[in-house]
């Protein structure tokens, strides 16, 4: 029992003293997952709205496939990206494997289906009314998409926050394509996982606390924004 308590004490000390290594790990985590969430959102939100209001034959099948990809395991995404970026892979010449950018790419691909699926589902259920109004007022396709995004922005923001939470808390993808290299590609989750296997708990606990705090802050922000609306 004692070592757990010691772990917590040491964790608090690390946090209070703003330990350099902890700070660099946390900031890399935030940079990687924020970039991935932004890229994924820019790519998938307009597309999700487009497909959400579009009427086409295989829409049911399309929905099912979309929802399947939403919960794709992060190790699979990591593996695919690693293969593509590996020296012999199609993008091997870019020398991206085991870099920050590789981690951003992997997490972007990981959360694209999540942002897409959530926003697609949202638009399918609530976009129809808005689309009809837009049509009667003379809006074209693009006007309509922009309008729907604006009208559903609170819910879309929740989707983005969900994607960020998924990105910042996943281990598999960043571990495989980043390699957990100290001072270079080490993020919170890969550190926790490594420290745990080494039996070095304080840093793992400190990072765990920060991870929870970040989640808490994000969801509090969303919640207060939601109430304002």
């Amino acid at each position, binding site marked *: 029992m004692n070592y757990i308590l010691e772990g917590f004490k040491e964790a608090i000390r690390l946090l209070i003293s703003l330990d350099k290594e902890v700070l660099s790990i946390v900031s890399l985590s935030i940079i990687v997952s924020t970039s991935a969430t932004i890229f994924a959102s820019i790519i998938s939100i307009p597309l999700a709205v487009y497909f959400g209001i579009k009427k086409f034959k295989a829409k049911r099948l399309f929905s099912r496939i979309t929802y399947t990809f939403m919960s794709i395991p992060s190790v699979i995404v990591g593996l695919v990206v690693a293969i593509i970026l590996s020296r012999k892979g199609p993008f091997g010449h870019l020398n991206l494997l085991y870099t920050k950018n590789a981690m951003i790419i992997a997490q972007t691909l990981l959360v694209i289906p999540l942002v897409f699926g959530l926003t697609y589902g949202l638009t399918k259920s609530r976009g129809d*009314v*808005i689309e*009809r*109004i837009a*049509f*009667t*007022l*003379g*809006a*074209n396709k693009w*006007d309509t998409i922009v*309008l729907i995004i*604006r*009208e559903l922005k609170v819910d879309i923001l929740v989707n983005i926050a969900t994607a960020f939470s998924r990105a910042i808390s996943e281990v598999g993808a960043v571990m495989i394509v980043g390699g957990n290299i100290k001072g270079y590609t080490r993020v919170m989750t890969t550190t926790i996982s490594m420290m745990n296997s080494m039996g070095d708990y304080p840093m793992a606990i400190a990072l765990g606390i920060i991870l929870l705090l970040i989640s808490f802050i994000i969801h509090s922000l969303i919640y207060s924004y939601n109430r304002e*609306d």
Partner: protein
Amino acid sequence: MRIHITKLKKYYGERQVLDIDDLIFEEHKITAITGPNGCGKTTLLNIIAGLDKDYKGEIRYNGFYLNKDITDKMTLVFQKPYLFKRSVYENIEYPLKIRGLSKDIRNKKILDIVKKLEIEDLLEKRAHLLSGGESQKVALARALVFEPDLLLLDEPTSNIDPDAVAILEREIIRFNEESKGTVIIVTHNLEQSKRLGHRIVEM
């Protein structure tokens, strides 16, 4: 805009809700449509507006089939209006904005229409918090502001108090006379259909 409907049939599953052999809505005229609940009035407006393409038969707009040029020049005010989660001002501004009008012109048109409809005091309010009647007035303002050739109204005064009804009717008539707009209005109010309609269609 002259609307000519021929051999229009509309089914929901097995059930036929519309069967119109030949119907013309004359240009620059106000036509009132009346009829019992569920007889297909809203369905007909949706079809004319191009929102519902699942029907048999033909509709010509000034002799043409529906295209983007035509849809840009007509509008439908719904029985249950939906306003955007923005201010009333921005709601009314929307059709002008997507048509690329400059800020000054937009502002002038918006102030003009809210003055006519006597809803200046609503301008800064959040639109989705308005009462049912207020929403109907704003929805009408949003439709009139871009001066469409064809105005389709689905019971636009159902939630509105008598004084405001008089204002709305006055503006619908003004729109028809000054802008030469064609109006098709669905109403359950027989008096209203007489006051407004150059012609009344019973369904």
